[in-house]
């Protein structure tokens, strides 16, 4: 069975600090996708990134970066120089190639950025 674990339930940092959100996944399949979504207070889930299991290259997008390590089954997300607008719940998720539209979400990490 597939599983996504986000051990950090809540994180609170002061604005401009860097913060890393952890994600560990479990699957026996060798082909899968990993995602990060942001859920601001408005409620909509906003897609941030998708990586496939063949591509372990780290990715940077502005202040966001993602570290994918198959050896530890982790897909961590770092926000550099955090801002108040980054406050939200962040979800890590997994989908298998064989059922790619069926996304399995972790329980989320609530991130609060204090001014």
């Amino acid at each position: 069975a597939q599983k996504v674990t986000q051990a950090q339930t809540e994180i609170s940092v002061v604005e401009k600090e860097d913060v890393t959100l952890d994600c560990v996944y479990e699957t026996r399949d060798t082909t899968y996708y990993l995602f990060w979504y942001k859920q601001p207070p408005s409620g909509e889930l906003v897609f941030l990134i998708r990586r496939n299991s063949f591509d372990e290259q780290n990715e940077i997008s502005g202040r966001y970066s993602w570290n994918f390590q198959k050896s530890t089954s982790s897909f961590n997300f770092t926000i550099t120089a955090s801002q108040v607008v980054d406050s939200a719940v962040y979800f890590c998720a997994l989908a298998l190639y064989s059922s790619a539209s069926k996304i399995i979400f972790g329980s989320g990490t609530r991130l609060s950025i204090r001014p």
Partner: protein
Amino acid sequence: EAGVAQSPRYKIIEKRQSVAFWCNPISGHATLYWYQQILGQGPKLLIQFQNNGVVDDSQLPKDRFSAERLKGVDSTLKIQPAKLEDSAVYLCASSLSQDLYEQYFGPGTRLTVT
């Protein structure tokens, strides 16, 4: 481009009552999803439609939940009768096709069952 629309945004009902939620996906999106998000948890897929056909409803409690997408566009999700444990946010999402993994989510309907 208009996003995924859902209504109502909030609904409070008593247990054993019925409730229905409505979703209008992004124009042209063939695939539509309904998720249940219980407080403190990630969304869980209830049902997936491809056009007006059901692709996956394995996690839909079919004794009380039903969903339809008659013309392949709008969709309704119904709960009858509601239980206390159905209190959750019901999210609708859509994507161009089931092979594209970027799903666009609506704002959700927050259901409280008392």
